[in-house]
């Protein structure tokens, strides 16, 4: 199995719904619509042998209006030894994503962690509560609007880190 075969098979099945095909550093990457993540993963699991969820995490892009939050899945086909990366995007106002925890038991805590830091609402998750932060926390700390440093300090501004 190669990256091209993955792309071909997925395009045959889902057509134009999967977009943004690219291969950064050799890893086949694509974007799926937010409400189709489970369908795509189930197909990958049943038909293409991607039965190992390596990683699941979130990313916040504040400048992408309407699709600020992203969930990134890294899947691994252990038989053919090939990985792929699937991304979905959701608006920060209502970040609803279907849970993968029924398909992969490992997604349970990874989704809790992603909820904890980014505030995704994983629909159907059995126990969507904070995992690393305290229960009383009322914000999602990995979102970009929360500064890590003391806001009065100027030496940690973005321009000091090559941005803006």
């Amino acid at each position, binding site marked *: 199995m190669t990256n091209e075969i993955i792309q071909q098979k997925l395009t045959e099945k889902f057509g134009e719904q999967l977009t943004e095909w690219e291969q950064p550093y050799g890893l086949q990457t694509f974007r799926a619509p937010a409400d189709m993540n489970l369908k795509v993963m189930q197909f990958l699991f049943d038909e293409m042998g991607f039965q190992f969820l390596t990683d699941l995490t979130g990313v916040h892009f504040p400048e992408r209006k309407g699709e600020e939050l992203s969930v990134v899945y890294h899947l691994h086909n252990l038989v053919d030894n090939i990985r792929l*990366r699937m991304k979905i995007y959701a608006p920060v106002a209502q970040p609803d994503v279907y849970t993968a925890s029924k398909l992969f*038991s490992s997604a349970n805590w990874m989704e809790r962690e992603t909820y904890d830091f980014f505030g995704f609402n994983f629909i159907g998750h059995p126990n969507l509560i904070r995992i690393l932060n305290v229960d009383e926390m009322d914000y999602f700390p990995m979102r970009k609007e929360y500064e*890590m*440093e003391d806001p009065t300090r100027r030496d940690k501004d973005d321009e000091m*880190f090559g941005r803006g």
Partner: protein
Amino acid sequence: MTDLQQPQHHIKLSEESLQKQTTTLNLGPTHPATHGVFQNIMEIDGERVLETVPTIGYIHRAFEKIAERRPYYQITTLTDRLNYCSAPINNMGWHMTIEKLLGIKTPKRVDYLRVIIMELSRIADHLVCNSVVAVDTGALTGFTYVFQYREKIYEIFEEVCGSRLTTNIGRVGGFERNFSPAFFSKLTDFMASFPKVMKEFENLLNRNRIFMDRCIGAGPISAERALNYGFTGPNLRATGVDYDVRVAQPYSSYEDFDFKIPTGTVGDVYDRYMVRNDEIWESMSIIRQAIEKVDKIEKEFPEQKNVFYAPEADHFHLPPKEEVYTKMEALIYHFKIIMGEIDAPPGEVYHSVEGGNGELGFYLISDGGRTPYRLHFRRPCFIYYQAYPEMVEGGLLSDAVIALSSLNVIAGELDA
């Protein structure tokens, strides 16, 4: 009895607990048997564990957030504190991630030296885990045998980087300085004396009837469930799946080495113990091969003796201090590096290495700035610890304790 209310807490106690037919046991967060900050609220009936709810996050330090405000080279010290039993593997995994992003190819000698360091730290990691499993079964002697050799490994690290536990070893593209003759003499010393002690440790435990009776059948997990739970590393291999990142996606020239992947069959405590034991021997063989390869390179190309970092990684490599004080270019470079001024291209990289506990992955998104836009650590402990309730429920409480230590859950890696 009917008006008993569930307490206002997210941990739901079962009906039996409220009516006091079973016992609720709070194992941890600072229990001597847990070797770290783990809390398990267990529902036990006599000696049987009916239910356990792990609570984690006691030493969460927000590394992923901190990493968004640190230049690349400063993140190495954060990775030290993930799995602190094998910090050099984390350091080098992170360096290789940046090298992948920047497209730096390291010379073979650097690769082999890295392999030596990584395998030494794997041995140290497995020694901790295995000897602690033995301690939890009541055999303290083995622990005292092998910990002296963990100490020797730390002394070898000291020769390379000056520190022992949280090593911050190496730089992007290689090492900060060439390896000293003292390093090689200490390494040779270790390679000569360690096998005898390891044999002794094995003689003490491997076929020890009491140890076997305690471990066989305790905390088992099937290969299918282990894969579904995202197990990697020795814990997965103990179930019989021969997945090893060193073989599946070789990094740092692991493809040049000849070694076996030990596997188990049923994934219980004994299998995990045996897999780690065998991996120590495989690591020894890899180190021996690496030393030979380094020697061969130095013999064939004497000028390679001074190669300890990739030339293209210059903008990560501090010039020697005497040059900084006397030469203008060196001074400029020094400041540029310290301020983290590098031309990192925008891009996203996933790189993984075989850590002491399994696949340690780094998912890095760069937007061209001096710091990562987003950095996520795939921490093997965090992912497989969630299978712990399934592994211990229905078993004895004493089995739950050795199952926890044989999983080698490291609190630093669990909570990041």
